[in-house]
């Protein structure tokens, strides 16, 4: 303890700032911050799920709207694409921790392109569905939930793009890879949330 604080003091003298404050938690503030943000995101999705279950359970309306269909097969393949991107993201993160830069960069790019594929298939689905959010409440809620999720995929892709640019510039090391880790946490959240969206809207 004493040795540690002396070392910390020397460290401070090198860095000319006020002494670092005490850290009272094992989780650093940035990681805690993204988890808290994800809790609020879950509640945001929860409100749209409320709209969905309110329609189906409380009101007992049919799903999908009478005379319309939802293409389950393509969405199932697309789900597999998105879920596999979680594995590549994990690979990138582990590689960043181990200092394996080529694997980290391969993982980040793979995740980015898998995500981009998912988003393109979703947009293609919108084009070919044949009904719109204005047609009926089922359409509103379908486009509302998938659209909210698609917006989150887009944000995730931007974060990944940023991580890729930073990786190209030589950022990230085994000691400093928060720029991979935090987009990763967000990306896993987007994936898991899609599984709930998929099961509710397409399967149930």
């Amino acid at each position, binding site marked *: 303890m004493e040795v540690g604080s002396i070392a910390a003091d020397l460290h401070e003298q090198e860095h000319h700032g006020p002494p670092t404050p005490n850290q009272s938690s094992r*989780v650093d503030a940035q990681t805690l*911050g993204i988890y808290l943000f994800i809790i609020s995101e879950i509640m945001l999705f929860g409100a749209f799920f*409320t709209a969905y279950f309110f329609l189906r359970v409380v009101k007992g309306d049919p799903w999908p709207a009478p005379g319309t269909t939802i293409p389950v097969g393509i969405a199932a393949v697309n789900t597999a694409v998105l879920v596999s991107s979680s594995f590549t993201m994990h690979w990138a993160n582990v590689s960043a921790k181990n200092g394996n830069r080529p694997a980290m960069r391969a993982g980040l790019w793979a995740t980015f392109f898998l995500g981009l594929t998912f988003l393109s298939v979703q947009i293609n689905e919108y084009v070919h569905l044949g009904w719109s959010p204005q047609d009926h409440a089922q359409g509103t809620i379908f486009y509302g939930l998938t659209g909210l999720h698609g917006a989150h995929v887009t944000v995730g892709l931007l974060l990944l793009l940023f991580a890729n640019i930073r990786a190209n510039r030589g950022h990230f090391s085994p000691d400093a890879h928060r720029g991979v880790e935090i987009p990763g946490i967000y990306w896993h959240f987007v994936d898991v949330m899609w599984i709930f969206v998929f099961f509710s809207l397409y399967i149930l």
Partner: protein
Amino acid sequence: MRGLPDRKTGWLSWLSTTDHKKIGLMYIYATFLFFMLGGVEALLMRLQLAQSQNTLINPQTYEALVTMHGTTMIFLFVVPVLAGFGNYFVPLMIGARDMAFPRLNALSFWLLVFGGIVFYMSVFFTPPNTGWTFYAPLSDSAFSPSNGVDAWIFLIHLTGLSSVLGAINFVATIHNMRARGMGWARMPLFIWGILIYSYLLILALPSVAAAVTMLLTDRHFGTGFFDVAQGGDPLLWQHLFWFFGHPEVYIMILPVFGMISEIIPVFSRKPVFGYKAIAASTAAIAFLGMLVWAHHMFTTPTPIVVLAFFMLSSFAIAVPTGIKIFNWIATMWRGALVFKVPMYFAVGFIAQFLIGGISGVMSAVFPVDWQLQDTYYIVAHIHYVLFGGSVFGIFAGLYYWFPKMSGRMMNETLGKVSFWLMFVGFNMTFFVQHALGLEGMPRRIYTYQSGYGWDTENLISTIGSFILAAGILVTLFNAVRSVKTGKKAGNDPWNANTLEWFTPSPPPENNFDVIPRIRSAEPMKDIRREVAAAGRPAGSVAQPVAPGT
């Protein structure tokens, strides 16, 4: 301070600051500005209602005033002013040098300011006039074609994002940056209040953010979330709105409970009674508060068993709330009470909040609520908890912490005059509204016939509201005057218990040169005891005498 970049000075130092104290002060200035706007709106409404069939204000303007008053007080005053006090005092009370994310903190503040500006811009075209709850279908484009509703929607988006980001910042700060030795059971109770307030914001605000987004697409892109013709349901709005709206009332009171729990022990010269019970009841209120939203919807077509659940869960909240009130009274019991202005407001808070709590339990009985819904009884109830409770608590906090923020004391006499004007004015305004509600006067009506027997009570209420306003102005005058002419406060004018009083008033930019090790929930008491025992200067106690804790 070697190696640090030059600090900006003048007004640029305020616009560009990431210092939690400056941001906290800007929150307090901005929100008090909105408080005055909301207050003027309230006074205009009371003027219109002073006599029956008054023609001072036309119905559209009156409904716009109702809407703007409610929205302003909730989204632009009580919630953000608590964030302001939190910003200033959370790092000081836990022994940190700033918040966990200083730049995010500045973003939160500016989002709030621009949310307020966007909303008030609607005054120049058509202000919204649906009431602060914006129930669909009234708020849908068919019935509210004007852009006032959209201005409100963007206010919710901007201030909501501001609050959620601020809340994440508070939680990360409180979890991560407490001084050495400050375990969970040694955190000041105000910190507990801000922590639970932040968790509630994170959990509840996304619901209303989603709801207003749905309303926005319904209004402009033809979606059918709330439109019956398309198969949507207006009741969904009420569920999503109140799933946020009820935790919101605890968001507006829990940090105030924390302030009261700091102030009462200091002015009773006794440790707080039942520290753990107060902290735990704060968490219990938050948990139960998430399960009671439909007690705002007792008159909607909902099965009786659901109504009974929401009635019972609402009753249950009275238990942890009662625990707090008994703890505060037990703290004062046989204490050496010092009646300074913060204590006046704290005691006034307890009395008035108790009345508001009791009328809340009454209206939680759903058959009773069927009678009381949308009457002035509910108006009286909400103002007893929100004004008699939250605002009196905020004034207690202002008088208590003003010396720390400005370095100078506020005038005691003016403070007491302000308290008595506010106390008498408040109760005069709102106590009679219970009677008006029971006599059947509906809320949000712009005028009423003379034959109903509501004239005298309305006149009393209006006179009371102007006395209340005079009381508020005395405090504002006192604050402005004391910044320049108040007597110097010194580090610790109240002989208080918590760490913010360890540092000079106002605190330097780095808050503390040394951060003492914390050994109890009342670190300043330990420090004073050590100083007295050893006869050493206060700074030297920062070095722990014995290892451990």
